[in-house]
């Protein structure tokens, strides 16, 4: 019953999306006002119905209802409850339903809470959101139905990829999806504003908190995903420029550009056409990413062996939405009134350079991601890896950081640079100190890490400069947000630079009792023992790491074996052991047993890394997300509304 109800709810929600679209279109063409009155409740109902359908799918996974094809293929009654729930979105159909749930809930939130937009723009925005929803409802119902029943229910399910049995991974996709799909709101705002020609500061101010909201989730999702890859893959790296990583980075870059350009439009009523364009690009990049991952063009743990029919479906949807939005933009761009002018040396000027650099990096990452696909179509097999991305993105990102030093210290419209020149010396001094320290004591350091750490020093000091001489308690939240986020960029950059410049690596075949030196640590290999987990067996190594100061820590890297369920082959995974210290992390991986010439397996391969300041990378990511959150809270004016309400109440109380 549950599965049938879920499917019925999806159909009703799709019908409501159709209704919103038609009613909104008729109203905008000069129709009745009561048509517009339909759109808001229909948008809320779509969100509620789709979320309920998603809840029902979770219930099916919780109950391990093996008569449902999706549950039988992806779950198992023996799995821990938390992974049964996470299994709901650990597959193609379920994750697409989650995607759609977020899309429709975003529409519902706009309908409920957006009060700053003009009525006709709001209706146009909701109609655009419904149009997006409609296509993806069709995709879900016709080609990826999650509620499909099996003619005969198997006794138990086929389980879930053991690698996906990880608490971090369970919550990584939903976070990223909120960010990805949240950008649809900016897209719909842009389409709505283009339709009604209401492009100006009011529209930008309304859009801003929504952009920040999805960008926060993208930031958290990417940071968490990077940490997951770091400890789970056992390769010791934190970013691989894998296509799947790139397609999450690309919308993040678009979002970063958008939230800076929307600031110009909101405050100074300039860069209007550009802001609208970026809003369209942001969600377009989310769709391109979904297409690349879901169509099976790339093969990795993220793409669950999809058939070409689905890829074609997504490609057509994408062509309609992106093509439609761009056509609308081309038709209306000419009539977008000219913005206010500004001097090059001004806040706007710095933000224009910021946008130019961010979009250039975006284009180059996109080029590297798509190039192998294009080359393969032309008969050459090519892989584009870290050397390409480091070479194109590294220098541009460093220039971007230098612009970030200047931007916040410049005034809007026109600036004589006085404030900039008065506050810059300390920042430059900090950078110079870092540079000299690295040259004197750092030994041989590559040029990119060297510049990275130097720029990080400059940015760290300069990012705090907007707070100098201010009453900290009276500094507005968005300013705090900017300072925290920019400081986070410096922390992240310092972590990346230090990790790549000073990483120490040891790979040995060690017998129990051997001591391995790595960085400041002496690591003693004590031995291995077999361990049984809830649904795997494992060989656990014991390492004792001793610092030069005499402190000892025990690390237990594992090599796990998951038995194959229902005839599938067993799977092995490595579980790295991490030791976090103030100065960085020690990372240990247990490899295979080594057989000596006499046939006795008395040694084990062990790989150790000392990674200085590596955790600063994720700390920086967290700070960026925190800064964006502060900024969003300030921009959404929730606090202001709350204070005003309290103020009014207290006034009423004392009224005669």
């Amino acid at each position, binding site marked *: 019953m549950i599965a049938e109800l879920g499917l019925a709810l999806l159909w009703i929600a799709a019908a409501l999306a159709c209704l919103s679209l038609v009613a909104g279109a008729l109203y905008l063409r000069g129709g009745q006002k009561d048509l517009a009155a339909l759109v808001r409740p229909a948008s809320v109902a779509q969100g509620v119905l789709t979320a309920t359908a998603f809840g029902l799918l979770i219930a099916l996974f919780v109950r391990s209802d093996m008569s449902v094809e999706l549950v039988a293929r992806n779950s198992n009654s023996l799995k821990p409850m938390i992974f049964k729930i996470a299994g709901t979105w650990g597959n193609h159909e379920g994750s697409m339903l989650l995607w759609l749930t977020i899309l429709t809930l975003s529409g519902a939130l706009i309908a409920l809470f957006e009060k700053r937009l003009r009525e006709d723009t709001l209706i146009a925005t909701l109609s655009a959101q419904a149009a997006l929803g409609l296509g993806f409802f069709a995709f879900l119902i016709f080609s990826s139905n999650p509620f499909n029943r099996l003619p005969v229910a198997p006794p138990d399910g086929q389980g879930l990829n053991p690698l996906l049995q990880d608490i971090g991974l369970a919550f990584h996709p939903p976070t990223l999806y909120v960010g990805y799909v949240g950008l649809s709101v900016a897209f719909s705002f842009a389409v709505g504003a283009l339709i009604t020609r209401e492009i100006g500061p009011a529209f930008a101010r309304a859009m801003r908190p929504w952009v920040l909201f999805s960008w926060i989730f993208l930031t958290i999702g990417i940071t968490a995903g990077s940490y997951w890859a770091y400890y789970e893959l056992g390769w010791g790296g934190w970013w691989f420029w894998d296509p799947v990583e790139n397609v999450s980075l690309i919308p993040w870059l678009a979002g970063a550009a958008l939230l800076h350009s929307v600031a110009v439009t909101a405050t100074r009523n300039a860069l209007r056409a550009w802001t609208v364009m970026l809003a369209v690009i942001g969600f377009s990049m989310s769709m391109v990413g979904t297409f690349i991952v879901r169509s099976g063009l790339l093969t990795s743990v993220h793409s669950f062996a999809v058939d070409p029919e689905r890829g074609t479906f997504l490609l057509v949807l994408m062509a309609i939405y992106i093509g439609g939005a761009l056509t609308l933009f081309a038709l209306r761009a000419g009539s977008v009134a000219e913005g206010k*002018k500004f001097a090059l040396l001004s806040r706007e000027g710095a933000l224009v350079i910021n946008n*130019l650099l961010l*979009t250039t990096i975006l*284009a180059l990452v996109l080029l590297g991601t798509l190039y192998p696909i294009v080359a393969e179509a032309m008969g050459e097999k090519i892989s584009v890896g870290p050397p390409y991305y480091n070479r194109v993105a590294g220098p541009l990102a460093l220039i971007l950081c230098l612009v970030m030093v200047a931007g916040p210290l410049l005034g809007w419209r026109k600036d004589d640079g006085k404030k900039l020149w008065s506050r810059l010396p300390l920042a430059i001094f900090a950078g110079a100190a870092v540079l000299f320290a690295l040259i004197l004591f750092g030994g041989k350091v590559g040029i990119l890490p060297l510049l990275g750490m130097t720029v990080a020093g400059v940015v760290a000091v300069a990012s705090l400069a907007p707070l100098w001489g201010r009453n900290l308690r009276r500094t507005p939240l968005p300013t705090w947000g900017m300072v925290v986020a920019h400081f986070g960029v410096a922390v992240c950059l310092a972590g990346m630079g230090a990790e790549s410049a000073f990483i120490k690596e040891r790979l040995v075949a060690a017998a129990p009792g051997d001591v391995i030196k790595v960085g400041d640590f002496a690591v003693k290999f004590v031995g291995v023992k077999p361990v049984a987990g809830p649904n795997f067996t494992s060989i656990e190594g014991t390492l004792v790491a001793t610092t030069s100061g005499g402190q000892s820590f025990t690390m237990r890297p594992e*090599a796990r074996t998951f038995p194959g369920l229902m005839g599938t082959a067993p799977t092995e995974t490595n579980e790295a052991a991490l030791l976090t210290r103030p100065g960085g992390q020690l990372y240990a991986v247990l490899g295979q047993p080594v057989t000596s010439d006499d046939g006795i397996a008395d040694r084990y391969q062990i790989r150790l890394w000392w990674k200085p300041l590596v955790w600063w990378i994720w700390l920086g990511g967290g700070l960026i997300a925190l800064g964006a959150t502060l900024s969003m809270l300030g921009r959404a004016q929730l606090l202001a509304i709350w204070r005003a309400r309290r103020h009014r109440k207290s006034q009423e109380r004392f009224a005669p």
Partner: protein
Amino acid sequence: MKAKHQRLVLALFAVAGIAGAGVLGASALRDEAAYFRTPVEIKGGKAVVGEPMRLGGMVASGSIARQSDGLTIRFVATDGKASVPVEYTGIVPDLFGEESGMVADGRMRADGTFVADRILAKHDERYMPPQMGDMPKNMKAPKA
């Protein structure tokens, strides 16, 4: 400066940015993109010594030889038509084995051995390079 001029300057900036990005991207792609090669292509003289590339093939049965340091392995990668010796120092992926597919990132040494920096196994649950999909599943590895 009039607003219209400002627009023009911004547009010129954008065009210059796009052109710069195009040049940068194209030159970096030419220098840094690695070709995916099969053993038969390498034997055909398509591989330049020292140039980064990606090698795909099956591990020939009976060819994996562990070196006495316990860390280095040598094996033969084959595509049924030709074979290339491969050397790798490190921990091999869990699903790496004889008569199964693998992809290696690395470069050719002058003596005709492929020196791998990283090895990825086919059917690795974590990662499978797109090129692996093209290898026939039942491709038989001949005896080395």
